[in-house]
């Protein structure tokens, strides 16, 4: 593994009206790794994701991706740069069908529709549309979504909705994928299936930053674990080291 991390978060601070959600948080995610971020409820994990994906502007600190400073970019610019995410509370677009939802993920990678394609579209000859559809279907396949693709996502189970959201994020061809509790609500069989999918995604050369409460899953999957508690990083390292870290045991594992 190379020395320069893919994502380098340095000294990030976020407060909500006086409440310190993140306090001087630093974290490095190595390329092509599966990096887990764990911590008790309200530790600030989602907030850190929001900062990394640009939805929340940090009050202090800096963000680097591929050694390029990107603090202050808009979320859409960050996606184009190569960071995509899902949401802890699923946020699919209700009026769009499953496949259209995933197609939205492809937008940043699509060429413009030519006038010819626009006119011939009703005849099924729109190249851009076909490209997006194929790619979206491929992503749904990758996350092992087996449901109806033409129906609205609200008809799907929560587990399937999470899969669709991961597919939507993957469709943007991200180098770094942020997954916020993707296994929430999954049974053990589904969770281990998801572990396999995450490995597969890593196998495609992508990097995964994973927030997950399922500690069994985290420790079997992750190359690196960072522990966040009350807005502060309290431990970081390989799973075996973190597992035995006394601060972690008292702050986090002890409570579970």
């Amino acid at each position, binding site marked *: 593994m190379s020395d320069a991390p893919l994502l380098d978060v340095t000294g990030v601070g976020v407060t909500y009206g006086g409440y310190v959600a993140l306090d001087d948080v630093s974290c490095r995610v190595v390329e092509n790794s599966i990096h887990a971020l764990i911590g008790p409820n309200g530790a600030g994990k989602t907030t850190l994701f929001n900062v990394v994906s640009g939805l929340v502007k940090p009050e202090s600190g800096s963000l680097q991706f591929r050694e390029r400073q990107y603090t202050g970019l*808009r*979320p859409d610019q960050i996606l*184009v740069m190569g960071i*995509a995410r899902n*949401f802890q509370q699923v946020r*699919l677009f209700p009026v769009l069908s499953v496949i259209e939802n995933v197609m939205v993920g492809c*937008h940043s990678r699509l060429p*413009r*529709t030519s006038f010819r394609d626009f006119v011939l579209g009703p005849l099924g000859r729109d190249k851009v549309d076909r490209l997006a559809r194929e790619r979206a279907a491929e992503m749904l396949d990758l996350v092992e979504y087996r449901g109806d693709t033409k129906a609205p996502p609200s008809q799907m189970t929560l587990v399937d909705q999470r899969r669709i959201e991961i597919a939507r994020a993957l469709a943007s061809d991200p180098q770094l994928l942020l997954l916020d509790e993707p296994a929430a609500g999954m049974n053990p069989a589904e969770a281990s299936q998801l572990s396999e999918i995450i490995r597969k995604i890593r196998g495609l050369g992508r990097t995964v930053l994973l927030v997950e409460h399922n500690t069994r899953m985290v420790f079997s999957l992750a190359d690196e674990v960072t522990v966040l508690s009350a807005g502060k990083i309290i431990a970081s390292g390989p799973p075996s080291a973190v597992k035995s870290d006394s601060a972690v045991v008292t702050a986090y594992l002890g409570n579970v």
Partner: protein
Amino acid sequence: MFNSYTESLAVFFGINVLMAFSVYLPSSAGLISLGQGGFMAIGAYTSALLTAKDVPFALALAAGAAVAALIGVLVAAPAVRIRGIYLIIATLGFGEIVRILFINLEFAGGASGLSGIRPLTTLWYVVGVCFFVGLCLWRLRTLTLGRAILAVHEDETAAEAMGIKLLQTKLIAFGGGAAIAGLAGGLFAHYALFIDPEQFGFSRSAEAFLFVVLGGSGNPLGPVIGAAVVTLLPEVLRFLQDWRMSFFAVLLIGCAIWRPGGLVAARPPSRL
């Protein structure tokens, strides 16, 4: 084929369909406008002043649409940051300002308006423009732009996180709506042959808004049906004589209560 009564009815229906589309497009991105009459006025005056200088009709129409779109984008750039009811109020204010502006523009005839506009709008012109705009809107959903517009309407945060440029998408939707209203204005001016600022006031804007809410904003058919109902129903109700508009008003209230999502093309519920 048509006598002049049905023809003029058909033309005004077509123009109303365009006005309905002009509300529909921005509404797909969650931008509700109660000021489309203002853009219609801009299109009407621009094109009428141009054809008076012997500019070809098609070119004048396009210019009217372009000016309306340009102003739409300029107005919307700061305004799309505000939402919901605030945006409705802002567009309403905009419509009024345009009306007042034209009252005070000497070269546009001021309060007494422009008369002697050349009769260049034909039924087929209107039908053609309606079909073209309708087709574009119908096709929109299969384009990245259309999906982006819908995504922005559903969930701005998620849309932005998926790489959609919020501001740009909203401006295109709003500017596009303004352009369609500008087209409608151009067609209107060259059929009515006389325009004055009062024709494009609040009631015009409210009417266009009603087309869409009545018909439903789930797909482009909704606005067409809404425009049909509002344009044709008063004609059908002629036997009620003086009370037909009252009856129509009661129907409006009934629709609001029993068909709040629109008559045909209800949009599935989502956050707004």
